[in-house]
């Protein structure tokens, strides 16, 4: 028996709770007054309340709380960095260890599915309050759209890809976030009557301003995310076999793995969750050897300890304090990755068939989409509530905050929805000015 975990590209990294184990965990919860865990959730999912529901044998009530507060509750249950959020705030830590809030949330969301619950329903007869267009179908837009639809607004999401979800569908590995989990959450948004237009890239033929001026939308929300892979700025990045994380993950996610890596040697450069995802994707796609190279120390790595541990469990190595110097190869294909040590004395060369650069994402050219002011990094500059400098144009999520987490994108999406509602009420939008579309 190997001590290293094995699996296929889609095998799930963590096993969930069943009724009994969920109950055991919920019984550990202290049912705090003014629960600190709930305070710790940026999106207001309210774990203190849904755990209490589980504890009192009411998993359906738990599912309702989650879905009403956080339309991406199923996704968040899988990918949130709880150790920095709700679980960090958990009172139980003072006794032994925090409640496994994420896993309980996953359990409740699974009950929603098992019972075929439809928690969210659009209000009847209030569909004509105003129409809002969203750019991109990532977490920020989805959360915003759900809030607006619940309040009776018409929402259309324009997405350049074929499917909704953004990074959830085209980035994070299915081992951590299976597609059916994403789909369950998106179904809740669709169930509210939110419309999707896939294969439409805003900024190509039509801008955000056009959506208002020509298409009759009352406001536009931009949740375009960060889709430009950052380059390392070293020689050899154009060699065949050197990939950016976004391209690599998207390809794997669309094709169910990255078959070309089978039995190959892969070097991943980076130290965040994205690097871990790239490494585990490569390994689960059948790569013979996967090694992560990171320029700083494990302590400094932004990846969560759980993700680092999961990579370790799969037999992936992490070499720290080495930064890439050059990628070389005799022909057009990469053959070696060369590194220099942080100490300026060490150096290393690793033979490889592929290099994946997971050193960050930046914004694509937003000026094509909107004339709103941009921040230094090419992100859209926003004030509280996702307001840009242009009336009727709002933005949130990675494209506004520079790249954070799903739950923060949800939180900001919810806030932007509230400020759009205020904006539209002030503007006293007349119902159905023009036929939308």
């Amino acid at each position: 028996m190997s001590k290293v975990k094995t699996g296929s590209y889609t095998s799930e990294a963590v096993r969930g709770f069943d009724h009994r184990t969920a109950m055991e965990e919920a019984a550990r919860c202290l049912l705090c007054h003014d629960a600190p865990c709930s305070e710790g959730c940026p999106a207001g999912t309210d774990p203190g309340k849904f755990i209490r529901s589980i504890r009192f044998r009411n998993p359906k009530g738990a599912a309702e709380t989650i879905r009403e507060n956080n339309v991406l509750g199923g996704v968040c249950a899988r990918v949130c960095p709880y150790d920095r959020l709700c679980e960090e705030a958990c009172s139980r830590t003072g006794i032994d260890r925090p409640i496994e809030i994420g896993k309980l949330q996953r359990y409740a969301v699974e009950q929603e599915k098992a019972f075929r619950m439809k928690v969210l329903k659009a209000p009847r007869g209030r569909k004509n309050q105003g129409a809002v267009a969203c750019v991109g179908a990532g977490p920020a837009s989805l959360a915003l759209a759900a809030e607006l639809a619940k309040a009776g607004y018409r929402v259309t999401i324009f997405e350049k890809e074929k499917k909704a979800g953004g990074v959830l569908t085209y980035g994070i590995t299915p081992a951590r976030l299976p597609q059916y989990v994403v789909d369950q959450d998106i179904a809740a948004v669709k169930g509210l009557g939110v419309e999707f237009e896939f294969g439409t890239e805003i900024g190509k033929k039509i801008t955000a301003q056009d959506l208002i001026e020509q298409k009759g939308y009352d406001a536009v929300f931009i949740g375009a995310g960060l889709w430009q892979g950052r380059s390392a700025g070293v020689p050899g990045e154009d060699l065949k076999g050197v990939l950016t994380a976004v391209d690599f993950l998207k390809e794997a996610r669309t094709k169910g793995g990255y078959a070309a890596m089978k039995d190959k040697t892969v070097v991943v450069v980076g130290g965040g969750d994205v690097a871990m995802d790239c490494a585990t994707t490569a390994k689960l796609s059948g790569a013979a050897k996967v090694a992560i190279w990171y320029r700083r120390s494990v302590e400094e790595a932004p990846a969560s300890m759980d993700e680092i541990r999961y990579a370790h469990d799969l037999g992936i190595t992490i070499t720290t304090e080495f930064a890439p110097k050059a990628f070389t190869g005799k022909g057009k294909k990469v053959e070696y990755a060369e590194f220099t040590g942080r100490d300026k004395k060490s150096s290393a060369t690793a033979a490889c068939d592929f290099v994946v650069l997971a050193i960050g994402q930046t914004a694509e050219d937003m000026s094509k989409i909107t004339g709103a002011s941009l921040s230094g990094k090419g992100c859209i500059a926003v004030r509280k509530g996702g307001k840009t400098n242009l009336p009727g144009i709002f933005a949130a999520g990675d494209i506004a905050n520079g790249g954070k987490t799903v739950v923060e994108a949800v939180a900001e999406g919810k806030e932007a929805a509230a400020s759009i509602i205020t904006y539209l009420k002030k503007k006293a939008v007349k119902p159905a000015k023009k036929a939308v579309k």
Partner: protein
Amino acid sequence: MAIKKDLSIDYLGVKCENPFFLSSSPVGGNYDMVAKAYEAGWAGVFFKTVGIFVADECSPRFDNTNKEGLPWLGFKNMEQISDKPTELNFEFMYRLKRDYPEKILVSTIMGSSDAEWAALAKMSEQAGADLIEGNFSCPQMTSHAMGSDVGSNPKLVKQYTKAVVKATKIPFIAKMTPNITSMEVPARAAIEGGAAGVSAINTVKSITNIDLDNMTAMPVVNGKSSISGYSGAAIRPIALRFVAQLFQDPTVKDVEISGIGGIETWRDALEFLLLGCRNLQVTTAIMQYGYRIVEDMANGLAHWMDERGYDRLDDFIGIALPNIIPAEELDRSFKVLPAFDTKKCIGCGRCYVSCYDGAHQAIDWDAKKRRPVLNDECVGCHLCLNVCPVKDCITPGEIKWKKRAKKVSPVVQVNYD
């Protein structure tokens, strides 16, 4: 080396290596089971109740209650007495006594007439039983002439006891039902009839759960179910109460009592001993965990005796009984305020919620520091202490005297598990 202590005890004139016995139930239902239990360390067995009547059991016949994922809080059974032929049961008993002469064999019997009781007693004697127990207490018998209907009828208890005592010289133990207000009444009747001891308790009539698919109780037997006996940890407090009341009765207190009901650990066992029991019986915990639990019962008890400097069980049997007094005699001249250890406190706020919603609004909540602050409304009920999840965070603190009270220092609880 594991600790060694003398756990032996004299029970109804019979020398037992320790007080731990199997109670009458499937855990002591045939030769092989009892032999295995003996080897695990049990001192004796109350063999599964034998009658002239042979039971025809239903299936399924068990259910359990749980709380917050903790199963077997209590256990329900719909079993009757032995479903094996009468002769076979006595043959098991005979062979057990022959092969394990040092172990104690108690024959538990149930008849439906004087003649049946007498015949069963005779057969027990022939099989070599050291003691005989009369089952007056099974709540799921199908005839009013047997089971707990008999146990709640003092006349029948006395009559059947007499029938046994006339038939044999072996000491007779009457097993009591808790499905009655005053157990002392049938216990006295048994003693009048000549019983040497009583055992308590048998199972408590119950409905553990309603099955929401079949709209009947659990377990479901072809769409139906019955009220039947509840046992295990959940009934221990009820058993202790009955046992204490038996010992407080001027007549019953002079006979030896075997304690039964929810014993799982050495501590549970000790509690029955401290009330005065000289013998202890167990079923449910064995059904859940097996005979091996006796190892920790014996060893744990020995360690406790070692800590307290006791050498034999007789040194402490019954010592808690005098301290259990009627509610009207309790000292009501003071209150013990709770003391909060703010360093241990983890800020869960449970004391605040419970004191407000279930006590006297005596705790103010410091929302910023997330700490409880006691105000003047406290009555010293200790609800807060009971809900606090942190060990030794809330403890008994300052004593407040009522007006005109004599200020003698009261004895308070010091140890909270």
